């Protein structure tokens, strides 16, 4: 090949290459900011886009989905599901990346586009570390049913939904979940909202943004988180249009005391490690080593057990956790040497029996005792001794069958063990605050997982003035149906009766708490709709 010919070939190749030097399309940029509420990836990933009819079809494909659809109503809007990644702070105050969902209503009607109200939703207790409430594409993911619920109830009816996954889940590398840590949970909620506000103008429907109304709700743990968020935002001078925390452990000190008194709730063996790990990481005052609290059968690795990538069934079957035995069947006794304290403590340490409890209550609480058991006897006695010496008055009122009112619900004055100090700090009674905007507290009196009376009842007593003024409302799904929520009360009671008929009472009660959830969320939607 001559030199001339060689140059010709390379000239051709170069020209071809240059002619094609177009740009590659870029992905969404990663934000360099780690400020609270900074959107880590903007625009966020749209996980799925479902028209109203496609969403209805997807829900109708399963029996539970069809029931949800019947309760929530036919979708008026389609829903775009986005996966938010954003920055918040961990309990030590360090920036940490977390994730969540942004659900945007779609459709041409004014109910589904343009400025729309925002619902900030807090999810319930999750054990799966992969929990991702944005993932509506995978019905096997642990968050699917909750994701579908809030989409069906809120987004499909014109509300923009923002829902964090919380620290400790999905992409979070925190290694544990700050469970019932009011300040951290509220920060996460507010940061998710900030990130969503940034993301909304960059979605596939950039004209659909917040209209200035902010509603906050959540269920179970999320009920607590929702209330903590209202408290924090109100303290910061930010406006919350209305809120509807539901079935949450608001009076966590009182609930904790009742459980240690033997009123063991369903799920307690899961809640216990979540909460001790959370508070130990936040305050370093729960134990010196886990065996200070936990029995030798379970103490090893309990501080890193939850959240977990494996199923609860596996944790139970492999002996990592007892299914329900929180305490020893052979109940311990107090030995402070102070007769009055020992006598009171021994009465509280004894296994609840019928009477004075009903047979159903006694059976429920009895399941919380067994062998092997989770909490060691020494710690249980220490806790109950402290609860006797430094009583949570609401818990004492409830355990003795009294009626809660504003005069008998005070927090413990000076709890002397770390866990009760932490409970007090994070109890929603703490801080002497009350909602300044409308709040509906939904739940069910017979809830065996998050006790209604000690939680919702205590807060209603705490805020009796606001209740009388109509600013704070209580909806008991177990009450005789009446008033604007009567159809929901009737619907819940019918649904649970049907569950009992189908599965038997002892099995159905395991699903009582989760059965409440969509009824409370529809109540929240109805409540929000009537707020001017």
């Amino acid at each position, binding site marked *: 090949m001559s030199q001339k010919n060689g140059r010709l*070939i390379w000239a051709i190749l170069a020209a071809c290459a240059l002619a094609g030097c177009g740009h590659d399309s*870029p992905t969404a940029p990663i934000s360099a900011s780690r400020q609270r509420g900074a959107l880590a990836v903007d625009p966020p990933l749209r996980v799925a886009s479902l028209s109203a009819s496609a969403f209805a079809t997807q829900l109708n494909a399963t029996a539970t989905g069809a029931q949800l659809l019947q309760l929530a109503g036919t979708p008026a809007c389609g829903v775009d599901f986005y*996966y938010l990644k954003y920055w918040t702070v961990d309990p030590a105050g360090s920036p940490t990346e977390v994730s969540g969902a942004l659900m945007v209503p779609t459709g041409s009607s004014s109910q589904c586009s343009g400025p729309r109200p925002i619902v900030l939703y807090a999810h319930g207790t999750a054990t799966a570390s992969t929990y991702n409430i944005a993932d509506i594409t995978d019905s096997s993911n642990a968050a699917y049913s909750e994701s579908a619920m809030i989409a069906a109830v809120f987004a499909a009816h014109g509300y923009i939904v923002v829902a964090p996954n919380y620290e400790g889940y999905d992409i979070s590398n925190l290694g544990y979940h700050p469970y019932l840590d009011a300040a951290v949970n509220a920060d996460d909620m507010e940061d998710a909202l900030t990130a969503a506000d940034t993301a909304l103008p960059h979605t596939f429907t950039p004209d659909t943004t917040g209209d200035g109304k902010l509603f906050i709700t959540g269920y179970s743990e999320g009920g607590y988180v929702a209330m903590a968020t209202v408290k924090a935002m109100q303290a910061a001078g930010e406006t919350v249009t209305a809120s509807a925390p539901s079935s949450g452990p608001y009076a966590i000190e009182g609930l904790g005391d009742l459980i240690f008194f033997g009123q063991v709730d369903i799920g307690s063996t899961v809640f216990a490690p979540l909460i001790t790990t959370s508070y130990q990481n936040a305050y370093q005052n729960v134990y010196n080593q886990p065996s200070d609290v936990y029995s030798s059968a379970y103490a090893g690795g309990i501080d890193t057990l939850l959240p977990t990538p494996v199923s609860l069934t596996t944790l139970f079957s492999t002996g990592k956790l007892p299914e329900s035995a929180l305490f020893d069947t052979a109940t311990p006794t107090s030995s402070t040497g102070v007769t009055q304290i020992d006598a009171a403590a021994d009465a509280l340490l004894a296994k609840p029996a019928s009477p004075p409890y009903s047979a159903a209550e006694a059976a429920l609480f009895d399941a919380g005792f067994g062998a092997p058991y989770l909490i060691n006897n020494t710690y249980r006695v220490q806790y109950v001794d402290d609860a006797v010496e430094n009583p949570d008055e609401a818990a004492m009122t409830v355990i003795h069958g009294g009626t809660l009112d504003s005069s008998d619900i005070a927090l413990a004055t000076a709890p002397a063990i770390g866990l009760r100090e932490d409970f007090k700090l994070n109890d929603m009674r703490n801080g002497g605050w009350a909602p300044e905007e409308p709040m509906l507290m939904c739940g069910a009196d017979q809830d065996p997982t998050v006790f209604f009376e000690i939680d919702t009842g205590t807060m209603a007593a705490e805020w009796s003035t606001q209740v009388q003024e109509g600013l704070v409302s209580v909806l008991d799904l177990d009450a005789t149906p009446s008033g604007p929520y009567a159809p929901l009360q009737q619907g819940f009671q019918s649904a649970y009766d049907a569950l009992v008929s189908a599965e038997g009472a002892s099995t159905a009660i395991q699903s009582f708490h989760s059965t409440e959830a969509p009824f409370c969320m529809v109540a929240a939607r109805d409540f929000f709709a009537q707020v001017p």
Partner: protein
Amino acid sequence: MQHKIATLALGVAVALAATGAHAGNSDPNDVRIGAYLLHFDSSGGDITGPYTVPGLNTSIESTTTLYLAYVRQLSRHFQLELAMGWPPVTYAKAVGPAFVGSVPYNGKQIASIRWFSPTALLEYNFLSPRSQWRPFVGIGVNYTSFFSRQITAAGAAVSGGPTSISLPSSVGPAATAGVLYRLSTRWHVVASYSVAEVNSRLTTDTAGVHRSSEIHFWPNAVVLSVGYSF
């Protein structure tokens, strides 16, 4: 890959070793220009990754582009062809369900890609160099590099947002068969059929979410060209 590079090296060595054999041929060089009618037989695994429903696949649409080649006579019967198409804009078309959620999928153009794809072929010519008709066959090596990888609006909609595409370069075997018809001493027309194997791995990045699919395709092209010898 190493095997393919070795094949390429062997081809080049054979070609270079044979260059001495053209002594006596007065017009050893040949440039050709024409039309590359490209068709892609493609196969690949379903696209996999987070938030990806099963059954999503792609195909590549046929296209036509400019064919350019330089041919060097090595001997009475052997020649070396360096060929390429003007980097064509090629569209990846969605194959799968009609909708992903409520986003249209099947049949939509979801990405456009340009590619630089030179092929080196060692060819054997039948009959005499002075024959008016001269069939030939050849084998060689194809190198393909992808660039200007663009997601379309439809692709972004189904992917969930702005998306970058990665497609590593490929080296694979190529083969050709054709016939040359001599118009004059210097001018001729050529019709040929060529096929190459291209293997790559499609990876997309949408807001930090990566999805991928193994891509195998066999670009087969009918080439109609006119050549000039000098």
